[in-house]
């Protein structure tokens, strides 16, 4: 075992006092979840009282706080959501341990199961889902509808952001992201300022119900298996409670277009069938512009973190430069649709 494998093994032994000869190997960092360091590993141990040759082996994922990331991710939120959503028909990994004490791995982390499947890269020019694009796109929308239908208080998620609120989530979410944008904005971006002003003066109707919002529900944040099933929905660190259209709008953002695999109308019909709600198209338009502002805030965070260091992840730098430009252009186009920008 290398040093980090040994430290993880020591932690697992601490959390599993019934286990003996805990070992960790095949530790490898993987891309994905840009707001956190993500590692896969294999752990093995003996259960006390069992024959010595009865080795238990598990493939696990460890998610650790980064030195710098895209957003101020809260690992305890992701861990809590994984636990709360178990048994609700949403494919999520079993989350085992959450740890804040830096003595183990220097920064907070949690450990969960490695799920089967692989991510589809949304920027791939060829079919990212290996012949199953339409099937996966339909399942993508049905899962989002199921998520929107869950009673978040009944699931024990009342402590999420906005968890005790009803109605005008647009205002609290716009305040939230406008504040993050203001904290991280480098050179002033008047395009984003103008969009925020428009959103404030042209609010959408109140949400039909408070819904669990994944916060980053899009192509690239789920795994699929060779039979065309979505095996896991990941990266829940921005989960909160809001208008269900917030996730719908984020999912159709043209930076990660699921609509290239299934027309929007058909995707929304799948969402309506499992959520039990109708999509208000005008309200969805408000949330689409909101998504572009939210994305701009995230990219501003990326720029700020890359500028300040100490960790300078290439994916964070790329997001700050390239995605920031993409979403300012998108805002320009969306504002033109509103008669604001020629």
């Amino acid at each position: 075992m290398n040093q980090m494998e040994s430290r993880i093994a020591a932690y697992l032994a601490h959390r599993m006092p019934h286990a003996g000869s805990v070992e960790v190997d095949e530790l490898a960092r993987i891309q994905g979840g840009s707001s956190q360091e993500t590692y896969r590993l294999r752990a093995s141990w003996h259960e006390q009282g069992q024959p010595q040759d009865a080795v238990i082996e598990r493939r696990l994922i460890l998610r650790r706080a980064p030195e710098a990331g895209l957003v101020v991710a809260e690992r305890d939120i992701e861990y809590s959501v994984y636990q709360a959503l178990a048994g609700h028909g949403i494919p999520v990994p079993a989350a085992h341990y959450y740890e804040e004490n830096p003595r183990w791995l220097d920064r907070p982390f949690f450990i969960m199961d490695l799920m089967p499947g692989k991510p589809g890269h949304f920027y791939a020019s060829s079919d990212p889902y290996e012949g199953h694009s339409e099937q996966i796109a339909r399942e993508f929308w049905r899962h989002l509808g199921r998520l929107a239908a869950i009673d978040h208080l009944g699931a024990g998620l009342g402590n999420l952001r906005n968890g005790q609120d009803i109605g005008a989530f647009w205002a609290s979410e716009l305040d939230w992201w406008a504040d993050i944008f203001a904290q991280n904005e480098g050179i002033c971006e008047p395009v984003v300022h103008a969009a925020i002003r428009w959103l404030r003066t042209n609010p959408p109707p109140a949400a039909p119900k408070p819904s669990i919002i994944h916060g980053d529900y899009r192509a690239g944040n789920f795994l699929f298996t060779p039979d065309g099933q979505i095996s896991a929905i990941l990266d829940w660190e921005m989960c909160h409670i809001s208008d269900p259209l917030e996730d719908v709008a984020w999912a159709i953002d043209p930076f990660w277009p699921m609509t290239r695999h299934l027309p929007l109308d058909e995707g929304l019909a799948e969402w309506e069938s499992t959520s039990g709600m109708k999509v208000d198209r005008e309200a969805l338009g408000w949330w689409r512009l909101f998504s572009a502002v939210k994305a701009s805030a995230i990219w501003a965070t990326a720029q700020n973190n890359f500028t300040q260091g100490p960790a300078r992840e290439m994916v964070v730098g790329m997001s700050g430069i390239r995605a920031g430009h993409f979403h300012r252009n998108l805002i320009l186009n969306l504002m033109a649709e509103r008669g604001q920008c020629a």
Partner: protein
Amino acid sequence: MNLSLETILHGVAVTLRDKIAPSLNDSFAIETSRLAAMLVTIAAHSIDDAAAARIWENDQWRQLFASAHPIVPADLGKRLADAAASVEPGFKISELDRENDRLRRLLVELQTCVESGTSDEAQAVNRRIWHILREGEERRAPRI
């Protein structure tokens, strides 16, 4: 022949992409090398016209402020007129960026003022702002 910074950066990017990345065994390191190559390529493409893009935009805002200051409240109008008469404090990218940030923050105040105005002059200024914002975004577009 002059060996430019742009050419050097392109050479670094190609080395990262075609020589370093394929020689690595760790998938995370390979992907990181490729992303680094893309970032260096973006830097290479932008280095030659970096000053020109900033000077163009700053000049556009000064011209706009010069024409717009009479139609806004006096305090803002005075600051717009002062900014319209300003010049670049220097030609380092960092100096141009600081000036660009100063002018853009003033622009946000101006646009907030004119976008709710109903006069033809206010609407014309607002249209001009959007036009410059779009063209400025195109001039600074990262290229890979």
